């Protein structure tokens, strides 16, 4: 069976890969969006923190003998805590300066972290085993679906929707959104805004760590695994519109799928298609598909 001259097997295979990539785009751009909303900085360390999540899973297994399911809980917390330390010791001094300094500082930290890991572990990548419960796969008739990949998609959709629900539908989220609009006023109402900022940064970074754990069994654990990925995620964020929660989720998955299909129909453009879409979106809607005009 073929569609547009392409075997369905290949088509659905690429669709699946697209959805997997989309899941990582969505989780990472969601974290960036949450951080940007409150801190007004683009967190350039995000790719390094995603890598740290994968390494945290690797260390948990090697040093503590704790498997994938433990890593899924521990790694985001640990990575989130390092984020909190970073925010408390350095980032918080930059809020009254131009936002670009935040970008440069986090870029510097990304270089340091990636450099240290590369110095210690080389750049060849370390294997991380697939959790035993999620080995194997389902034969759906038109394609073979590995269980782990299905899990990554389902789990990341759940995490994205839960984050969206907390921010858009709960009291805590209301405080957060209010502080995004006018931090001084929210602070005047007795909300501890600096602590909220710290925890938000920790949460966004934790999401990156979580994405890292999810990625570990699929890709190898590699010190540079986040370095190039994060630039694609930046483009995703520009397309979706910075600061929009649902925007990041939808564009993340959407662009992953588009990229997957490009691999089927015009493989030469698969690396650049997201950037081309970004250029087109900027021409039509400079503030992104879901962004508010600046």
């Amino acid at each position, binding site marked *: 069976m073929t569609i547009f001259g392409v075997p369905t097997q290949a088509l659905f295979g690429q669709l699946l890969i697209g959805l997997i990539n989309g899941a990582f785009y969505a989780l990472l751009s969601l974290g960036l969006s949450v951080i*940007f909303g409150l801190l*007004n*900085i*683009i967190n350039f360390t995000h790719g390094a923190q995603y890598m740290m999540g994968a390494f945290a899973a690797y260390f948990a297994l090697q040093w503590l003998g704790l498997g994938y399911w433990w890593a899924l809980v521990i790694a985001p917390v640990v990575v989130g805590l390092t984020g909190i330390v970073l925010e408390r010791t*350095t980032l918080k*001094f*930059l809020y009254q*300066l*131009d*936002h*670009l*300094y935040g*970008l*440069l*500082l986090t*870029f*510097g*930290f*990304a*270089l*340091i*972290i*990636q*450099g*240290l890991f*590369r*110095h210690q572990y080389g750049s060849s990548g370390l294997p991380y085993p697939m959790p035993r419960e999620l080995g194997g796969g389902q034969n759906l008739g038109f394609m073979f679906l590995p269980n782990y990949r299905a899990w990554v998609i389902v789990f990341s959709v759940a995490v994205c929707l839960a984050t969206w629900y907390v921010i858009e539908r709960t009291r805590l989220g209301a405080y957060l959104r209010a502080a995004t609009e006018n931090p001084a006023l929210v602070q005047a109402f007795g909300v501890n805004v600096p602590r909220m900022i710290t925890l938000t940064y920790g949460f966004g970074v934790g999401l990156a760590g979580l994405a890292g754990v999810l990625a570990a069994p699929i890709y190898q654990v590699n010190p540079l695994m986040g370095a*190039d990925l994060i*630039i*694609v995620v*930046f*483009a995703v*964020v*520009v397309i979706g519109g*910075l600061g929009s929660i649902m925007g990041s989720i939808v564009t993340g998955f959407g662009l992953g799928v588009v990229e997957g299909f490009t691999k089927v129909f015009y493989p*030469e453009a698969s*690396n*650049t298609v997201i*950037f*081309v879409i*970004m*250029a087109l979106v*900027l*021409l039509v809607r*400079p503030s992104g598909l879901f962004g508010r005009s*600046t």
Partner: protein
Amino acid sequence: MTATTDRYVESALPSVAGVSLSRVVAFCVMTGVLVVAPFFVYPVFLMKALCFALFACAFNLLIGYVGLLSFGHAVFLGSAGYGAAHSAKVWGFAPELAIVFGTGIAAVLGVVIGALAIRSKGIYFANITLAFAQMVYFFSLQATFTGGEDGIQSVPRGTLLGLLDLRETFTVYFVVLAIFLGGFLLIYRAIHSPFGQVLKAIRENEVRAVSLGYRAEQYKLLAFVLSATFAGLAGATKALVFQLASLTDVHWTMSGEVVLMTLLGGLGTVFGPVVGAFVVVTLENYLAQIGAWVTIVQGAIFVVCVLSFRRGIVGELGHILRKSL
């Protein structure tokens, strides 16, 4: 990102032909040192530093005087390098034509990317330029004429204007020095012209500049194209001198490096990018043997500069001397 050092009142200082005395002295010292240097220091190393110094000056035109942080300036360095290398090697262009051709390519890319990016500000601008740079990187990786991972190697240096044999190390050094000084002075001229004054006005308060009747977008675009062109001049020269155009020059790490050079030397200072480029190239030269430490040290410099050294080397020096350098 506003530069702090440029706000000293220049008219109160003694001046030579409208240029403050301190800058004239600094320029003479710089030129003198660069003329004597090849007799004491390895000239190839100096040429590398000079190319990067021009690159950083071009970048500084945009961040220091328009307040726009481009995180994709490697595009212009790299694409001009490919243009110059390809035209010299495959089409047999003379070196001066190859450099003009490469620079032209950077200028054209500057118009295209600038027209799209200039509509946004701050972090968006940085993100968008970075994304375009990545697009050009992947294009360079896949296109055939760039040689992919290998790059364009053993580019002939040729004979400049049919007179100067560029295979001689000293000849090529002084040609590179002349190109650098020419570019430096042109950038200085652009910054200190009425055009440059309008750029600063836009940086400080864009709405007000628009209300005074200036077409801010056109000024910003022109500044962007100028910056891209000079970055291209640096890239084309670099490709000919080192006889190599490669992916390194289009990769985003190169865009990060030029930010580092300018930040370390002093954003919005005239001489800062030059000093920053020399310091960074020297550091890389010594750290190259120990692999990953280059990026670690670069990252550490970023962190220190942003947290406690925002004026940069030259900015801090100017602050101590109470002079605008």
